[in-house]
């Protein structure tokens, strides 16, 4: 067991060190200075090892700390509950969020690259490897949750024993879920990928989230005794689950199936196998409906066929998001009726915190997925033909695609804008009727901005190589900067009128600048990376 643990660490550390060095080498300016032999240079390797070990330690605590801070602390601060009620709500939220987390994150059913390398490529003993690493992950959960539960629970008035039970409860739920999924595999030969939960799991998660955040609104938190019963039950069920986890005989077979089609793993294979699996996955997204045709010509013809044959992947999530937004708006309207304080909270949020929605629109925008589909199923092949690389043709297609990507993102953008304007009205409105229009237009502008942003990045940086791997360090840095800038907008508090006008003006200027840049540079930059 110790040997397996040591080997697992060594393996994980090796690829993590190489990944760090690779990431440094991909940095826009730094990458040019660092030699190609960076993997052989002792100093660089020591630096990457230090970063890797620090990351291992920090990851055990930082993620949990942020989880407690944002998911529980943030929600509690919004509710503004007094002393004892806050402690009760803390335990209540933690119980239901842990139940949701149980189905989304067990470690065992996450098809990560370390498992692929160890069990498939290197042929390590699957059972030994899985058990050692699973229990190591559970230990990290225990350590991280113990610290955070004490840090957050005690000041809220939770008892020490309650705080100490929390990490064992969370670990118990992970054991329970792992055992359940193993049993399911034994019975139905169906392996579970926790990154791709099926419908019933999403319903379960939605119910848990609704219970975690909705019930405290209605002043219906679990009594402290009930929370304690949940904690004890979780621990007991976890202990009972141990037997199945320890005696399950088919880890190797199960992981072969789990790792065979997981996109996260295939991206990491870095070989012909990657291309093959990704290719198979992308081909599945093409509609075989023989009634799909187009009466257009040239690039409009190409575009129409592409959009119609990829309708499922291009439009499905946009439609789902729009539906979820409608449901959320309906939920808020219902809450206005039953909880009058909620009305005032939402009104204040909309009147002063419109910038917050930049961050939300960042997450809802389908620009990155749209450009990935364009590359995988269209440009990857056509960019090898000389006619496709003519400057005039590149720009013509850019115009068409700009129209399409804006259309796809406009659906959730417009629904969000209209929904927020409606909520503003229903929550008490504002003094200026203009605010409703500005609110709607600024959310639509955000949607257009992100659409233009992702397509422009795609045309100016073309981040994929011929093996369909994302290789551009500059692209990664800019997308990360986009995330950070969107996140920073959460802190900005501005009136609707001012922020809305600024947002609309920024969007117009950005679109003009982006189009000019694409017209100037894309004929040179829109190429296959070799």
């Amino acid at each position, binding site marked *: 067991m110790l040997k397996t643990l040591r080997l697992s660490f060594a393996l994980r550390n090796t690829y993590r060190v190489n990944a760090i060095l690779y990431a440094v080498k991909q940095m826009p300016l730094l990458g040019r200075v660092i*030699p*190609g*032999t960076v993997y052989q240079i002792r100093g660089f390797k020591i630096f990457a090892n230090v970063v890797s070990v620090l990351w291992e330690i920090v990851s055990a605590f930082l993620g949990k700390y942020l989880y407690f801070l944002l998911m529980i602390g943030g929600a509690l601060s919004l509710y503004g509950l007094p002393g004892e009620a806050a402690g009760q709500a803390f335990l209540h939220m933690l119980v239901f969020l842990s139940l949701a987390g149980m189905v989304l994150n067990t470690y065992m059913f996450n098809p990560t690259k370390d498992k692929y390398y160890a069990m498939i490529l290197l042929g390590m003993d699957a059972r030994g490897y899985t058990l050692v690493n699973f229990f190591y992950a559970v230990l990290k959960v225990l350590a991280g949750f113990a610290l955070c539960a004490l840090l957050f629970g005690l000041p809220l008035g939770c008892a020490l024993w309650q705080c100490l039970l929390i990490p064992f409860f969370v670990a118990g739920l992970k054991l329970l879920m792992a055992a359940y999924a193993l049993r399911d595999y034994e019975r139905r030969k169906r392996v579970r990928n926790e990154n791709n939960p099926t419908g019933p799991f999403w319903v379960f998660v939605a119910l848990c989230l609704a219970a975690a955040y909705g019930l405290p609104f209605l002043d219906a938190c679990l009594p402290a005794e009930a929370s304690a019963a949940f904690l004890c039950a979780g621990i007991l069920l976890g202990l009972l689950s141990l037997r199945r986890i320890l005696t399950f005989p088919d880890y190797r077979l199960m992981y072969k199936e789990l790792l065979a089609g997981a996109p996260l793993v295939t991206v990491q294979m870095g070989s012909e196998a990657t291309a093959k699996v990704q290719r198979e996955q992308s*081909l599945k997204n*093409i509609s*075989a409906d023989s009634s799909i045709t187009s009466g257009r*010509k*040239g*690039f409009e*013809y*190409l575009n129409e*066929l*592409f959009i119609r*044959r*990829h309708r499922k992947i291009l439009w499905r999530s946009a439609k789902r998001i729009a539906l979820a937004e409608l449901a959320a708006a309906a939920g808020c309207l219902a809450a206005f009726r039953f909880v009058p304080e909620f009305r005032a909270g939402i009104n204040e949020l909309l009147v002063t915190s419109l910038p917050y929605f930049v961050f939300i629109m960042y997450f809802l925008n389908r620009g990155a997925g749209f450009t990935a589909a364009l590359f995988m*199923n*269209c440009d*990857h*092949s*056509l960019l*090898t*033909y*000389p*006619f496709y*690389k*003519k400057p005039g*043709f590149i720009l013509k297609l850019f115009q068409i695609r700009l129209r399409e990507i804006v259309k796809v993102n406009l659906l959730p953008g417009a629904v969000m804008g209209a929904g927020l304007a409606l909520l503003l009205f229903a929550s008490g409105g504002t003094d200026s009727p203009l605010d409703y229009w500005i609110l709607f237009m600024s959310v639509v502008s955000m949607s257009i901005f992100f659409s233009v942003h992702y397509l422009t990045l795609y045309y100016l940086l073309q981040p994929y190589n011929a093996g369909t791997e994302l290789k551009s360090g500059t692209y990664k840095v800019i997308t990360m900067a986009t995330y950070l800038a969107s996140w920073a907008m959460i802190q900005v508090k501005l009136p609707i009128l001012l922020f809305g006008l600024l947002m609309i003006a920024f969007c117009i200027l950005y679109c003009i600048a982006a189009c000019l840049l694409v017209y100037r540079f894309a004929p040179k930059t829109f*190429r*296959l990376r*070799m």
Partner: protein
Amino acid sequence: MKFVIEHLSKSYNGRQVLKDIDFAFEEGKIYGLLGRNGAGKTTLFNCLNGDLRTDGGSFYFEDGTGRRDAAPEDIGYVLSMPTVPEFMTAREFLKFFMDIHEVKEPKPLDEYFARMSIAPEDRDKLLKDYSHGMKNKMQMLIHIIAEPNLLLLDEPLTSLDVVVAEEMKGLLRSLKAGRITVFSTHIMDLALDLCDEIVLLSHGVLEKVDKSDLDRKEFKERILEALREEDHA
């Protein structure tokens, strides 16, 4: 017409893959490009096709009227792994290409398919359902209609079945007039069968192998010897 390469060089991570290459390819010939694994054949093709930036040097076409730089439409690059837009049918792809490309004397689409022995029942199938060989034929068809002055073929017959491979060889022979064809392969007999000239990419430079009075066996020996020298470099 000639395609002239002058002082072309390219380095990767401090290793010079192409070293100051000077070479002239002549119209109407098929050149067999041979080299060890990692010699830089694909790098050379990628540089000529504009997919990789060169470190230095130039390449251009030269004819009776003077010289001119190579434009994208001058070069057709056929990859060993055929790439076709798999969300389209063969007929749709061909129609799209004919829409945007000025063809001198356009023919009905079925005539082009017949030339490549693509059966009528396959012409309206999605390209994702095509076999490797069929995709290769479709890729070649587009390049044939585009009529590039320089056709670069990177191991195009690898992994084709014998029937398709023979069809493609016949096709390449029929296409060689009026253009320059450069064909990279690891199969020496194929190169000797199909190509008019054998060019080695060795130590980062292009070098034509002189056939002069040698018979096939002696010629093969000479090529092998030259390639083995790479080990001693």
